[in-house]
C-alpha cells in the first residue's frame, strides 16, 4: 500500500528540511522525499499549497477511559486527535481506576488498538492510586508500554516521594512529568489570584503554588540526575526558573498549552466555566513570557491538556464546576493563527514544538520524515479559515474557551502508519 503526497511544502526540522517536495509512504514507512513520480498502485493526494510535516504529537491528553466514558473514550479521543491533526497522543493516568499497574496500561493499549486511528501512549502513575505515598510498579508498567510517569491532577506533595520517583525512573530513562502545584498554598483556589479574582470574589490560587514546585522539581532533578518534565507551565517566573536550570545543564523540559499564550484571567466573563482549568489562566505578562519562551527555545513543547467534561460537570457555579478544557481539535488552528501567522515562531519551530521535541523527550521514535521512519504525517492548509464550533467536534467534550474564534490554518489530512485517518473535505 503506497501513498504519494504531491507538491506540498515539506517541513521536517529533524533533517533541517523545508522545501517543496513530494512524499512517498509505503508499507507504513517513509520511503522518499523529493521530486517523485507516481508509480503503479500509488494513491496520489495533491497537497499543493499545504504544509506537510511529521505527525503532530500531543503529549498531554485525558481520554477518561476507563471510568468516565461519559466524558470521553479512547475511541472518541482518538477521533478528536485524528481530526485535529495529531498522529500520536499521550494519555494521563488519572482514570478510574488510576493507571498505576500494568493491567490498566495493557487495557488502554488494547482499546487504542481497537480504535485503530492514532498512536496512543499511556503514562503511568508515580504513586499507587496517585495518592502520593508509595511508588507504583513503574517497571511493570514500563514493560507494558508506558512512556513516562506522572500524578497529573493529584500532584505529589511529599518531596521525598518525588525524589525517589526521579531516582527510580532513571532505570528506564523515562521522564517524571509533574503538574506543579503546592496544594497547601493553592488552598482550593479556582482561578489565578490577582485583580480578576478579587473583582469576581472567587478564591484565587497564588502563582507561587506552581512556581514553588517548579523550583522543587528542578532541585530534585539536579540532585538525582533524573529527568523532569514540567507539565502545562504557565507563569513568567516558572519559565525563568526552567531557563536558568537548562543553562546549568539540569535535565528539565517543559510544555505550554494554547490557552496559556492566548487568554488571561480577564477573559473570564460572567463566570463562564469553559474558562476554568488548572493551572488557571494567568495575566498579560505571563502570556507575553510564554510567547517569548516559545520563540527563544526555552519552552520545549506544545501540548493541549485536552480535558473533556460533560455539560453537567461544567453547568455549575464557577468554583464548583469541573476544571479543564478540551484542545485537540483547536490546537493547530490556534497555533497557526497566534504563533505562525502572528510571526512568533516560523513553521519549522512549530513542528519542533509539537512533533519532534515531544517525541524525543518520550523516546517515541516519531517526529521525523527521514527515510524508514514511521509514516505518520500531518498536513496543514495554511489558508483554510474556520470559526470554532464545538458542536462539530469529534470529542465528547464541548468545554472549549475558543468558541466563535475565527482562525486561519487548519489540519486537512492526517496519516498514521501510512493510512489516512482523517481527511478534511475541501470547503
Amino acid at each position, binding site marked *: 500500500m503506497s501513498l504519494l503526497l504531491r507538491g506540498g511544502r515539506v517541513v521536517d526540522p529533524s533533517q533541517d528540511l523545508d522545501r517543496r517536495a513530494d512524499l512517498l509512504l509505503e508499507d507504513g514507512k517513509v520511503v522518499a522525499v523529493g521530486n517523485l513520480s507516481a508509480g503503479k498502485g500509488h494513491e496520489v493526494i495533491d497537497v499543493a499549497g499545504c504544509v506537510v510535516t511529521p505527525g503532530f504529537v500531543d503529549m498531554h491528553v485525558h481520554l477518561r477511559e476507563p471510568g468516565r466514558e461519559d466524558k470521553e473514550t479512547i475511541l472518541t479521543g482518538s477521533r478528536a486527535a485524528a481530526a485535529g491533526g495529531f498522529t500520536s497522543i499521550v494519555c494521563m493516568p488519572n482514570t478510574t481506576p488510576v493507571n498505576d499497574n500494568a493491567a490498566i496500561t495493557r487495557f488502554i493499549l488494547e482499546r487504542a488498538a481497537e480504535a485503530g486511528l492514532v498512536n496512543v501512549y499511556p503514562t503511568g502513575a508515580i504513586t499507587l492510586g496517585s495518592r502520593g505515598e508509595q511508588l507504583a510498579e513503574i517497571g511493570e508498567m514500563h514493560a507494558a508500554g508506558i512512556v513516562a510517569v506522572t500524578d497529573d491532577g493529584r500532584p505529589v506533595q511529599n518531596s521525598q516521594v518525588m525524589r525517589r520517583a526521579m531516582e527510580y525512573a532513571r532505570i528506564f530513562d523515562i521522564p517524571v512529568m509533574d503538574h506543579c502545584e503546592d496544594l497547601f498554598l493553592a*488552598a*482550593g483556589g479556582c482561578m489565578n*489570584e*490577582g*485583580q480578576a*479574582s*478579587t*473583582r*469576581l*470574589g*472567587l*478564591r*484565587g490560587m497564588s502563582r507561587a503554588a506552581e512556581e514553588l514546585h517548579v523550583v522543587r522539581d528542578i532541585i530534585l532533578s539536579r540532585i538525582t540526575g533524573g529527568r523532569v518534565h514540567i507539565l502545562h507551565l504557565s507563569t513568567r517566573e516558572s519559565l525563568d526558573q526552567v531557563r536558568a536550570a537548562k543553562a546549568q545543564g539540569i535535565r528539565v523540559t517543559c510544555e505550554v498549552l494554547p490557552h496559556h499564550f492566548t487568554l488571561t484571567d480577564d477573559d473570564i466573563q*460572567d*463566570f463562564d466555566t469553559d474558562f476554568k482549568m488548572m493551572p488557571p489562566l494567568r495575566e498579560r505578562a505571563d502570556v507575553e513570557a510564554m510567547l517569548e519562551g516559545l520563540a527563544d527555545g526555552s519552552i520545549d513543547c506544545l501540548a493541549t491538556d485536552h480535558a473533556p467534561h460533560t455539560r*453537567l460537570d461544567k*453547568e*455549575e*457555579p*464557577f*468554583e*464548583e464546576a469541573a476544571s479543564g478544557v478540551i484542545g485537540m481539535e483547536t490546537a493547530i488552528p490556534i497555533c497557526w493563527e497566534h504563533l505562525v501567522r502572528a510571526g512568533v515562531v516560523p513553521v519549522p519551530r512549530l513542528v519542533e514544538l509539537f512533533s519532534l521535541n515531544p517525541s524525543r523527550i518520550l523516546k517515541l521514535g516519531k517526529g521525523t520524515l527521514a527515510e524508514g521512519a514511521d509514516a505518520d504525517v500531518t498536513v496543514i492548509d495554511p489558508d483554510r479559515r474556520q470559526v470554532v464550533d464545538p458542536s462539530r467536534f469529534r470529542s465528547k467534550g464541548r468545554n472549549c474557551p475558543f468558541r466563535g474564534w475565527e482562525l486561519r490554518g487548519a489540519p486537512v489530512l492526517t496519516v498514521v502508519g501510512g493510512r489516512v485517518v482523517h481527511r478534511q473535505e475541501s470547503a
Partner: protein
Amino acid sequence: MPLSSRHLLGIEGMPIGDIELILSTARSFSEIATRPIKKVPTLRGRSIINLFYEASTRTRSSFEIAAKRLSADILNFSVSTSSVGKGETLVDTARNLESMSPEIIVLRHQAAGAPWLLAETCRECSIVNAGDGMHEHPTQALLDAYTILERKGSIRDLKVAIVGDISHSRVARSNTYLLTKMGARVWICGPPTLIPLEFGQLGAAVTFHLEEALADADVVMMLRTQRERQNEVFFPSVREYFRLFGLSRERMRATREDAIIMHPGPINRGVEIDPDVADGDHSVILNQVTNGLAVRMAVLYLLLGAGEEES
C-alpha cells in the same frame, strides 16, 4: 423609567442612574412603614421565590417582608448544603422553580457567580442576587448607601472606612463599587491576611492601620470577622485582633464627631466592635435593617411594577 436590566446581579457595571432610581424609589416606600396598615396592593398577584442556599435570617426576612408589604406572594425555598450528597443541581432547581412561573427569584448562594448562572438559565423571570459567595451583595450596598444618604445628605467626598475581613466579604466589594461610583473616598482596613493585594485596584485606598482608616472618617463600616475559615488561620487571636482592628470608644475619637457606625450584621460583640459602640449614639446598625425593607421593596417594585406601568 424602568431599570436598565431585567436582573439585579451586582453593583459593578450597574449604571449610576439605576442606583439613583432605586434609592429615590426607596425613599417613597419608606413612609409605608409608618402607616398602621403597612401594605400596598402594588404587586398583588405577583409571585416571588426566596431561594436560599445559605443560612440567612436578616436578608431572607427582609425580602419576605418587603414582598408582603407590596402584596406579592412569596415562597421561601431553603436548600441545605450541609449534606454530603448535593442532590439536584442549581440549574435543575432553577428550571423547576421557573416552571411555577414566579416573576422574581431572589438567590442567596455560597458560590460566586451563581446568580449569573441562574440568569442564563431562566428565560422569563428576574434574578435578584441576595449574596453570592465572596462576590457581591448588591441590596446590602444599596441599603447602606440609603442609610448614609439619610444621615449625611450626600455621599460625595465622604471618607468611608470599611474594616475587617475584606477577602471573604461580598459586602466590602459591593460597597466599594457603589460608594466610589457615588464619589466617596473608600478606605479598606484589616490585616493583610484578609485583604487581597489587588483590592486597591477596585478603587479603594488600603491600610493595615486602623487609626489611618479612622482619621476624620465620616462613616465607619465594621465587618464580621471569623478567625478560622476552612482550617486556615488568619490572625493569632481574637484578643490581638480586637487590639489592632476592633472599634472601641477610644479609637472612635479619631473619626469626625458626627461619624456614623455601620455593620451589615451579624455582629460579633467584643471581636470587631465594642458593645458600647455598637449600641451607642453613632450607631445606625438598626437603621440599616429598617432601610433594608424600603430598598428591597424598591428593587422588587422596579423589576416588576414600574416596567409594567410603562407598557
